[in-house]
């Protein structure tokens, strides 16, 4: 046997780890139960899925022009929603970033607001806005804007917090006001990273917008839901191909733009 004074704490650490592991396993088993995971059901449903997949080919291209207009609606929703989100994000991130906030008293509520906006998905916001402003892409724009505002402002604030304090201190000593200092010493330094974050969320918002139609907020998602409801799987396949092409193209454009920024 080895020395207990060495073994003692090591044994304690092992026991604690084993305890944590047991808790984690129990939690996971509970989740499996609550989520009603039942592979037998999947097994029995497989023939139906296979049948649908078979009926999806060849894709139905008869309404291609309508579907492309709906896809354009999705891109527009994501783009306008992201831009509105960025406009909301700008003032809030300046309050939320600890190194430029005018007061710690504003810092905490600003962060709380961001967490609320970020915590509620654009899908949920869109659901509410459909009730408020009616069916159509504008509800989607508002939904994307609010969720994007929270996410963009949070990442912007984090990016601003990593900036070197030196240039801001130097600008402070010119006697300039806070807003002038932010414009002159902060914005030029962080502009590439803020733009890169915005592009990333533009991509993200367009992907999120593809499903907003399910709650009636316009775009290709609406066609997707209608087609599934009608069991028109050849049309579903066309829509999925359009979504795939659209998302791939947007990702490529955004990635290329972001590379040029860094």
């Amino acid at each position, binding site marked *: 046997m080895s020395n207990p004074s060495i073994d003692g704490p090591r044994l304690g650490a092992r026991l604690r780890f084993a305890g944590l592991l047991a808790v984690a396993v129990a939690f996971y088993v509970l989740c499996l139960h609550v989520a009603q995971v039942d592979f037998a059901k999947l097994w029995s449903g497989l023939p139906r899925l296979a049948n649908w997949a078979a009926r999806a080919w060849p894709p139905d291209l008869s309404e291609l022009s309508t579907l492309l207009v709906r896809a354009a609606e999705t891109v527009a929703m994501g783009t306008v929603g992201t831009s509105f989100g960025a406009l909301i994000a700008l003032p809030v991130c300046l309050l939320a970033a600890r190194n430029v906030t005018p007061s710690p008293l504003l810092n905490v509520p600003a962060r709380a607001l961001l967490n609320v906006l970020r915590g509620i998905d654009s899908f949920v916001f869109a659901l509410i806005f459909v009730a408020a402003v009616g069916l159509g892409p504008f509800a989607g724009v508002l939904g994307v804007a609010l969720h994007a505002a929270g996410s963009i402002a949070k990442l912007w604030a984090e990016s601003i917090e990593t900036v070197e304090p*030196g240039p801001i*201190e130097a*600008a402070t000593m*010119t006697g*300039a006001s806070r807003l002038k200092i932010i414009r002159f010493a902060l914005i*030029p*330094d962080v502009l590439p990273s803020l733009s890169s974050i915005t592009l990333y969320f533009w991509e993200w918002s367009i992907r999120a917008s593809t499903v907003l139609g399910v709650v009636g907020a316009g775009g290709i998602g609406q066609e997707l839901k209608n087609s599934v409801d009608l069991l028109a799987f050849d049309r579903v396949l066309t829509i999925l191909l359009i979504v795939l092409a659209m998302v791939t193209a947007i990702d490529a454009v955004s990635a290329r733009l972001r590379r040029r920024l860094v």
Partner: protein
Amino acid sequence: MTPILEARDLRKTYGARRALDGVSLAIQPGEVVAVLGASGSGKTTLFRCLTRLVEPDAGTILLAGRSLLGLRGRELATARRDIGVVFQQFNLVRRLSARDNVLAGRLATTPLWRVLARAFDRDSTERATAALTAVGLADHLHQRADTLSGGQQQRVAIARAIAQQSRILLADEPVASLDPDTAIAILELMRGLAKSSGLAVLCTLHQPHLAERFADRILSMSAGRIAAATPAPL
């Protein structure tokens, strides 16, 4: 004659460490004073307290006879216009041109909309160009700050203080990141400004031979106190 800047019994502690343990000094217009000390002697804390980038725990700071420590917000900003600063790490806005960095010295007197649009008036632009010419950078007006050499960046910082029309230049280890020849050129530039325009220069240094060559007066710091004040042997 009223000193342009005077400090009395400044104290600052970080935890148990006394960074400033009762520092008093005074500097007249046109005078060049070096604060000489090893790293950890408290000279950077002194610089940061005199600019109020750090609040001293106790003491008095008089800028042209007026107390600096009581000021807040807009009043503090207005008082700071009289203080030009030069840092060891230059602290320029890297992605702006040399002239834009010098124009920072005009921020306080430029209307907000002009700053937001980065559309400075003719007078400010001309002053910035003249300031850069005065420090020998007339050929680098539009060069991005992060592509300038260390010595050039420090010249830009000095030009910013000229454009700001500050009455005192506070420099914290302005030549510690520069090679010896460039260091001497920068110190001579600051000394020349003091003697030609009445700018007061207070400069922290850690190399005695530079302080002796450059300053009218040397204050030696150690352990947060001014241990000795000597007129430099010119």
